[in-house]
Structures are given as structure tokens and as C-alpha cells.
């Protein structure tokens, strides 16, 4: 059977990892939709754990070509959710595309952490949550697509 054809859902390790990745991506999706809504409605986002949400989310780095970076994140998390769900249901060949997207998201996360730490000099808890989600996704997808041998 070709890779890109539907395969029966197996209770295997990869299926479990993809399913967990899909669920974890929903956390990132909810987080980024919340930030997008707050950004576009012009309201100040208040941090309850750290104190730099307003500084980070209203900085010039919070937009990409005029669009909120959080909205780009929401699309990325939705893509990850879709691909991880399909991979969990047997569309295993999508795992490579999923790995590429998650890899790009992880590199972006590293860049955003650098900006928060050294350029803006403030941290936003919602961005840190997104960084945690992306890092978790990276680990999950890495082990899911890794060849057995």
C-alpha cells in the first residue's frame, strides 16, 4: 500500500505521538487565536505571571507585513493540527511535511525568544506558552517520524 493512502489506524507508537501532537497543537491554536483577537481589537493584554505582555505584543516585531504574528501562528498551529490528525489516521507520508512545518516553527520560536530576551527585553507569558507548545510539538514529531532503526 502506498504511503499516502489511508491505512488502518494502528495503536502503534507513532499514532499515539501524532494524536498527542494534534491535541497539543490545539493549545497553541487557542493561545494564538486569543492573542490575535486581542491584538486586532486593540485591547491591552495583561500578563498575570510576567509583566511584559504589552511591551512584547505591541512591539513592531508583533506584526508581519501588517498582519499580527499571532495570526500567522494560528494558521501554523491549524496546519500542524490537520497534518497530525491525518497522520494519526494513517496518512503517514504527511509526517515529513508536518516535521518541516514544526521545524520552521521551532526556529521561529528560537528567534522570537531571542527578540524577547535581548531586543524587547520583556517576556510575554502567552508567547512563552506558545514556545513551550512548539518545543513539545518538535519533540513529539521528531520521535514520530524518526525511523525505527
Amino acid at each position, binding site marked *: 500500500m502506498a504511503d499516502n493512502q*489511508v491505512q*488502518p*489506524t494502528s495503536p502503534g507508537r507513532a499514532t499515539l505521538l501524532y494524536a498527542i501532537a494534534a491535541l497539543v497543537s*490545539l493549545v497553541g*491554536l487557542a493561545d494564538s*487565536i486569543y492573542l*490575535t*483577537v486581542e491584538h*486586532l*481589537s*486593540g*485591547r*491591552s493584554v495583561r500578563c498575570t505571571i510576567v509583566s511584559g505582555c*504589552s*511591551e512584547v505584543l*505591541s*512591539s*513592531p*516585531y508583533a*506584526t*508581519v*507585513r*501588517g*498582519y*499580527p504574528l499571532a495570526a500567522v501562528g*494560528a494558521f501554523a498551529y*491549524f496546519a500542524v*493540527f*490537520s497534518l497530525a*490528525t*491525518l497522520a*494519526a*489516521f494513517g*496518512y503517514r507520508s504527511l509526517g515529513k511535511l508536518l516535521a518541516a512545518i514544526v521545524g520552521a516553527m521551532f526556529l521561529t520560536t528560537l528567534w522570537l525568544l531571542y527578540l524577547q530576551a535581548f531586543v*524587547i527585553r520583556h517576556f510575554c507569558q502567552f508567547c512563552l506558552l506558545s514556545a513551550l507548545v512548539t518545543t513539545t510539538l518538535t519533540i513529539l514529531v521528531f520521535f514520530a517520524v524518526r525511523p525505527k532503526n
Partner: protein
Amino acid sequence: MKRILPFAIIAIVLGAGLLMARHFQRTSSETPTASPDASPGASKSSASPALADATNSKEPGAEPPHAQGDATAPVTLEEFGDFECPPCGMLHPILKQLQAEFGPTKLRLIFREFPLVPTHAHALAAARAAEAAGLQGKFWEMHDMIYEHQKDWHESFDVRPIFEGYATKIGLDVEQFRRDITNEIVERRIFLDGKRAHSLGVSGTPTVFMNGREVPFESLAPDKLKPLIANELAAHP
């Protein structure tokens, strides 16, 4: 059924996302500071072509404006600022540095009051303090003081004694400053700048116009604004 199930799950999540988007649209249109630019299909930083070179035909704002640099300078930056907004505070040292680099003969800076009320609780008080200092000829000194100490006051409960402390530091007659905070001229200047902001479609801060054209928000980063000014200077030597 197993073939359909993953697509059904994805469709459900997509539907939930679209519901969120609808919620955003409703929230956006109900928010006083939101403008047509703050919609999903557009953005604040996508400068409207209608605004280009059209600022002179709009509301004039408070006269004379608070300006630094020669009136004949080839590049004029007109900033609509809110003293309590963090990105305005971050933009402040960038503009200071650019003013120092280009000099008053090439770069003119105009500051317009656009306090985002009620988003920022002390923005109006800060605008009043700066305008009151302006009545004693020290607008820019107070402007700099308020921005440079933004973190010291923006979470305070009562900012009046803090601003009075700044008034003392920059050498104002503090009694006069205290009276001027509620002066009708101060109120009117803020009102007129606000009218100009609305006539130009300004919805948030900082919004900067360069020779009448809105500078995209992301171009206010230090590494992007300088080349924009340099290009404008090259176009208007």
C-alpha cells in the same frame, strides 16, 4: 467512516476557528479605538493610499504644533503618540537618535497627542501634563521626561505627584503647572490633535506620517525607519 473521521475533526476545529474570527470582528467593531484598518482583511500598517499626501487637506490639529527641526526640512515626521503606550516609549529613543543623526535642517518632528482612553488609564493625564508644560515653553522637556520614565509611572495609582516632580525637575513653575493641567487651552489642543488623528484614520499609537504618508507600523523598528528617511531625503534633496 474512518476515512471521513479525520476530515470531520479538522472541519470541526476549522469551524471553531471561524467562530472565533466572527467573535473578533464583532469585538473589533465595538472597540472605540478600532478603525476600518483593524479588520481581518486589512491591517493598521497597510497604509491606506487615500492617506498619501492628503494630510494637509485634513483637520489641521492644534496650532502651532509641537515641532522640532526646521519648517523647511525636507523630511517631516508627524507622530501621533500616547505617552502610556509601550511601543511609543520604545519609539522615543529611536526618534531621538534619528533626530541627532539627520539634524534639524533635514528632519522635522511633530508630536500630536492621541491618548488612548480608556485603554491606558494615565494617558490623558500624561498628555495634559505635557501640554501644560508646553504653556511654559517646555513641552519637549516634559515629553522626554514622561517617555523616559514611562515604566516608573504607568502602573502608579496617582500620577499627578509624579508629573509634578518632573515639572520641578525641568524647572517649571509648579503652581502654574498644576493650574494649567485643567486649562481649557490644554484640553483644546488635545481635542484638536485627536480630531486630526481621526480625520487621518489613525486608530492606534504610535502612528507616524512621513511627509504625509503613513509609515507602516513594522517599519518603525530602528533598522527600518532610518533607511526610509534616507530614501525620502534622496527623493527630496
